[in-house]
C-alpha cells in the first residue's frame, strides 16, 4: 500500500467520523465545529488531487466564512444548549437507519465489486487559478454560461432575503 493511499484512508475515516458527529451530536455548536472538520478533510482531499485552488477555497469560504455564519446564527438564536430537537423519535428513526443502511450497503457492494469508482475522471494536471479561469471563462466551453447563471441565482437570493426581512409596505 502506497503512502498516499494510507493517508487517504486515515483522512477518510476522520472525515466520516466528523460527518457522523455533525448529525449525531446533540449540541448544535459541536455539530457546526464537526462540520468544520469535514470541510478541512475535504480540502485536504482536494489538495491531494492536485486541485490546490479548490482546496484553498474550501477552507477559506466554507470552513471560514460560512461556518462562522452558522455559528453566529446558532448563538444568536441561543441554540447553544442541548435542546429537545431529537426527542421526536417514533417511526422515523428506524426508517432512517434502514435507509442509510441500504445506502451504505449498496455503496459498499459497489466498492467491493470494483464498480465504483467506475470510469475514473481524468484528474486535472494541477488546479491552478489559471486553469480554472480558462475553464470557467472560455466561451467555447460549457461552464461560462453556468457561471453567469449563478449571478442571477445570487441576485434572487439577495432579493429574497430582503423580501423576507423587510417590514410590511404601506
Amino acid at each position: 500500500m502506497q503512502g498516499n493511499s494510507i493517508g487517504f484512508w486515515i483522512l477518510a475515516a476522520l472525515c466520516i467520523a466528523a460527518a457522523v458527529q455533525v448529525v449525531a451530536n446533540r449540541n448544535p455548536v459541536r455539530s457546526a465545529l464537526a462540520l468544520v472538520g469535514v470541510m478541512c478533510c475535504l480540502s485536504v482531499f482536494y489538495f491531494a488531487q492536485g486541485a490546490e485552488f479548490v482546496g484553498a477555497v474550501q477552507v477559506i469560504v466554507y470552513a471560514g466564512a460560512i461556518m462562522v455564519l452558522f455559528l453566529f446564527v446558532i448563538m444568536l438564536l441561543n441554540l447553544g444548549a442541548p435542546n429537545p430537537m431529537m426527542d421526536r423519535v417514533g417511526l422515523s428513526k428506524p426508517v432512517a437507519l434502514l435507509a442509510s443502511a441500504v445506502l451504505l450497503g449498496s455503496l459498499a457492494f459497489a466498492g467491493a465489486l470494483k464498480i465504483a469508482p467506475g470510469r475514473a475522471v481524468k484528474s486535472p494536471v494541477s488546479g491552478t487559478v489559471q486553469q480554472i479561469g480558462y475553464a470557467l471563462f472560455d466561451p467555447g466551453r460549457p461552464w461560462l454560461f453556468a457561471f453567469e447563471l449563478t449571478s442571477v441565482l445570487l441576485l434572487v437570493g439577495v432579493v429574497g432575503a430582503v423580501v423576507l426581512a423587510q417590514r410590511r409596505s404601506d
Partner: protein
Amino acid sequence: MRRDIDVMAEIAFIYPLIALWVGACLLLLLARPLRRATRPGGSAALAGAALLASLAFLVRQGNEGLNVIAFGGSIAGDPLTASICTILLLCGMMAVALAPTYLAARGYDNPEYYVLLLTSLSGAMLMAMARDLVVVFLGIELLSFGLYIMAGFVREDARGGEASLKYFLLGAFASALMLYGIVLVYGSSGSTNIEALRSAVIKESVQSAMFAGGLALVLIGLAFKAAVAPFHQWSPDAYEGAPLPVTAFMSVVAKIAAFAVLIRLADSLAPLHATWLPAVRLLAILSMVVGNVVAVAQQNLKRMLAYSGVAHAGYLMVAVAALGSSHAKGAALDTQTLAMSGAVFYLLAYAIMTMGAFAVLTYVTGTGAECQTLADLKGLARRRPAAAYGMAALMLSLGGVPPTIGFMGKLQIFWAAVAGREMGLAVALALVSVVAAYYYLRVVLTMCFEETGAEPATAGAPRAAGWVVAISATAVLVLGVMPGLLMGLIGMVR
C-alpha cells in the same frame, strides 16, 4: 472574427431569458416609484411587458431557434424546448394577472413579487433549454428560490410561512440528492452533458451501478419538483399555505419544467431504459393511485388540487414511460413522437386547467378572505354564475370528461401508452380516471346544488382574474373540440 459572430448568435438565442432578467432588474430599479404609485398594478404591468417581450423574442427566433447549440453545448433549442418555453410564458402571464388584486388587498403588491416570478420562470425555461445537468440543476435552483420565497410572501399569514419553510427544507434536501446524483453520473462517465452521456450509454461504456444510481437520484430530484408520489408529501402543505396566486404559479410551472427535463432524459438516455423504466412505471402507478384516492378525502380545494396535481403527474409519467418503452423496444419513430407530443399536449392541458381552477378561486376570493374550502363554493352558481360555469368546465376537464382538453390529453397519453406497449399503465390510467371524476364532479355539484345564506356578491371581483378564468375555460372547451388548433405548437415536437 468568426468566434465573435458565434457568440452573438448564441446570446441571441437566450434573448427570451434576457428579456425576463432585464424586466426583473427594471422592477428592482423602479421599486420605489412603483411602490408609491396610487393605483396598484404598475409592477404587474411591467412584469407582463417583460413576459410579452420574451414571448416576442421566442416567436421571432422561429425555426432558427430550433437547432441552436449554445455555450459549449450547455443549452440548445429544439421543438420540445420551444413549445415548453411558450407554455411556460403563457402560464407566467396568467400568474401575473392573478396577483395584483389579491396582493394589494393584503398590502403586499410589491415589485419584488414580480421579480421573483420572472426569475423563477427564467429558471423553468432554462430547465427546458438545458443540455447539461449542471444547467438543469441551476435552473431548478433558480426556479425553486423564487417559489420558496413567494410561498411566504404574505408574512402575516403563519401558514404561508410554514408552507415556505417546509417547501424550502424539503426542496433543499431534494436538490442535494439530485446534486449527489449528478456527481455520481459525472464520476462514472466523466461528463454532465446529456448528449455526451447519451453517446457514452450507447457505447455501453458506463453501464456501471454508480451511473445507474446517479441517474436514479436525478430522477428522485425531478420527481420531487414535479410532485410525483411518493415524493409529493410537500405539495399539499405548500399549496395550502401559499397565497392563491403563488399556488397557481407553483403548481403549474414547477411541474412543467421538471417534466421537460424528464421527457428529455427519457428521450436521450434511451438505451438505459432497461434499468430506468421499472422505476418510471412504479412512480406513474403510485402517483395515479395515491393522487386520486387521497384527493377524494379532501375538503380543502387547494389540497384537493395538490393531490390532483400528483395524479396528473402520474398520467404524465405514463407518457414518459411510453416514450422510454418505445425507445427500448425499438418501436417506430412515430410511436415516440406520439408519446412526446402526448406529453407536451397534456402539459399544456394541465397548465390551462389548473391555472384556470386557481384563477376561479382567486376571482371568488377578490379582496376578502381566501376561498379555499369546498364549503366556500356553496351556491356559487347563484352568487357568481359566470365563475361557477367556468369552474364547472375546468373541473370537467380536469376529470377528463369529453369534450374538453383534459379528455383529449388523456386520450393521447392512453394512445401513446398502448402504442408503446405499456398496457398495464394504460389500463391503470383508465381505471383511476373513474375515481378522479368523482371528486371533480363533487365540486360542480357543491357549486350548483348546495345553498348557503350568503348574498349574491356584487363588488370586489378582480377583473384580471376574471379574464384568466374566461380565457382558460374557453380554451378548455375550444381546444377540447378542436385539438388540431394546437398542432402548430405541439405537432412540431419532433
